[in-house]
């Protein structure tokens, strides 16, 4: 059996753990016994993209140690998967350590979630049920750095009950861009407001994307604007199934369609 490691990413670990749980749910449903190497921390992208390559070196070393022995790594983030694929080599070269350069070259392949589901597992229908109108924003790094193409929308189209509304100007950046969002906050917000306007124009209840960082930005705007549109990671949509109706006739989690794992609702923990 292939040893598959979940690279949950630091932002999901601390801010959006439900996304990590949803990945586990979906993969187990498809028969993949994913492991979570607890030694993982952060891929180093925030440092690299801000110009702090030296500060990223220990993070790259840590990533390699954490995922040593795994045959595949799955990340619910196009951006972090892209960072491992395209930036770890740069950081290793910067370190001047030929051993690190070799180790990066030999590291297990990292897949963004939709790549793993569609390419490796050969699945588009993951057995999900989500009777809502959603729109999908292809994040820049998943689209242009990884080239995931239409894999995420193929997965969404196979979700029962789901209506996918096309997002105008979908391929245009939402304006997050990591530290760009605060270093150039005004420009970032101008970009994000245009994205939010397009999202609202679709009439969707839910904006879906494969990166919670971008969703944090657009979602922060949508929520501030009292738009009534919520944001969800692709994994969380794919984890949803038909409500499990308990003996007293109420849906198991009381509110929305159920999942295989009980999902905790944000505020009430």
């Amino acid at each position, binding site marked *: 059996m292939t040893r598959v490691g979940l690279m949950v990413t*630091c932002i*999901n*670990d*601390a*801010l*959006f*753990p439900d996304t990590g*749980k949803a990945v*586990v749910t979906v993969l187990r449903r498809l028969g993949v016994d994913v492991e979570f190497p*607890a030694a993982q*921390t*952060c891929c180093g992208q*925030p*440092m*690299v993209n*801000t*110009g*702090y*390559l030296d*500060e990223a070196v*220990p*993070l790259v070393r*840590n990533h390699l140690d*954490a995922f040593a022995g795994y045959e595949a790594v799955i990340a619910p983030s196009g951006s972090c998967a892209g960072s491992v694929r395209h*930036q770890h080599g*740069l950081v290793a070269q910067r370190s001047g350590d030929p051993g690190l350069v070799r180790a990066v070259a030999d590291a297990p392949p990292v897949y963004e979630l939709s790549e793993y589901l569609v390419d490796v597992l050969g699945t588009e229908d993951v057995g999900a049920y989500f009777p809502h109108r959603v729109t999908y924003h292809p994040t*820049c790094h998943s689209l*242009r*750095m990884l080239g995931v193409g239409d894999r995420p929308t193929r997965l969404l189209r196979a979700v029962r009950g789901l209506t996918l509304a096309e997002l105008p100007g979908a*391929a*245009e*950046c939402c304006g997050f*861009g990591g530290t*760009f969002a*605060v270093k*150039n*906050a*005004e*420009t970032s*917000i*101008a*970009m*994000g*407001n245009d994205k939010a306007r397009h999202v609202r124009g679709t009439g969707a209840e*839910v904006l879906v994307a494969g990166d919670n960082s971008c969703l944090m*930005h657009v*979602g*922060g*705007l949508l*929520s*501030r604007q009292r*738009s*009534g549109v*919520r944001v*969800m990671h692709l994994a969380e949509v794919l984890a949803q199934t038909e409500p499990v109706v308990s003996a007293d006739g109420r849906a198991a989690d009381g509110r929305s369609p159920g999942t295989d*794992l*009980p999902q905790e609702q*944000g*505020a009430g*923990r």
Partner: protein
Amino acid sequence: MSGTFLGTPAFPTAAKAALEDSQLRRNLAHATGTIRTKRAKVVGEVDEWEQLRLAGEAIKNRVLRHLPDYLEQLERSLTAAGATVHWARDAAEANAIVVDIARRHATDEVVKVKSMATQEIDLNGALEAAGIRAWETDLAELIVQLGDDLPSHILVPAIHRNRAEIREIFLREMGRAGRPAPADLTDEPARLAAAARAHLREKFLRAKVAVSGANFAVAETGTLAVVESEGNGRMCLTLPEVLVSVVGIEKVLPTYQDLDVMLQLLPRSSTGERMNPYTSTWTGVTPGDGPQEVHVVLLDNGRTDVLADPTGRQALRCIRCSACLNVCPVYERTGGHAYGSVYPGPIGAILTPQLRGVGHDPQTDSLPYASSLCGACFEVCPVRIDIPEVLVHLRSQVVDAHKRERRVPSVQDLAMKAASWAFAAPSRTAAAERAAGLGGRLAAKLGRTAPGGRPVLGAVPGPAGAWSDSRDVPVPAPESFRQWWARTDGGRREQEESR
């Protein structure tokens, strides 16, 4: 003609002012949107576009690998064809050469073909200081010059102006520079073009000296090429007696055959046309036909410094098409002036800091950060310049330069160091997350609920304001994923409990 980018504040500040200019926002969104659509259409109809891009990249890479050889070959070919070749290390040398040529012909004016190289060295300013007027003849350059404005785009320097503004500039300024605009001028494009045509015609017919750049310079034959849309270039290149072309050293191509690839890539990428209306090529002096005195000034001005950087040198492949500007979501909103350079947009953000050098002034150092790294520029670049890669590379150079200089680390230095320390070991990461989770519990009580049920915070005072002024702030989860996994054995115990 006093326009200067000197004194432009760092990008975030300059951008803020631009973002508040509703007319600018509207003009740019309209213009870049139109040209983006045109480009996508004409690129889409070429089946072998990717092969063409690869070929363009390969040709330019070959040039950069053997640049000294091709430049010397170009000099020999040009000299054999009757042209005079000058070498200029920097702007001052290049400007002095052109001023000297104009003076020798005792003229107080030159006509100019649109040229980025002469913008880069501020040739017009140098000529003016020598008492020589430089008349821009490209329509958009004319608008910028008459309006005492600055260019904001590589291809369409007046892209920030709409036709109502152009009409006002023509009515107000044309009379001072020569033939006035007709008093009944409207803002119809054809009427505006006709006014410019009549205004420029007398300058074309009178000028003794013309100044141009070159899109390409063929080493094998000594042929220079200029591509344009309006015919003003053809006028300048053929009517005056003397022609001076200021050419960046990276513009050289090995063979005439290479134009085959470049002349397919350039017009489709820049104006969204299958072919540009005017392609002028000239090889030194042709007796009895066109200018009888031909000069070529080969300009370095920082280019050899760029060439010395293995990652950064790909910027020298640029053929100045401006596709990256038109597709850039940052440029579309801030416009070109915010970049404080004749080279705005994504290519400017990697070219300007390399030509000027980083670590000297905050404005230049802010340019590599003027990008969300979305990668749209790389996707459209006809010579496949990986602009995001160079941006990140230059960011590291900025950080390195500041680390060397600063005795006391900046707030950002400290934050990155702290994050690096916390993420270098999982135990520290876990501890930081526990602390954040505790903070999150408290914050959740203070915040409100976003659609979908998550607790969020509104505007937060202090440095977090840059984020939270317009965006709600997610509250850290009370239990991190790592804690949840440890507590429930990856959800297995939780599943059993719920049965």
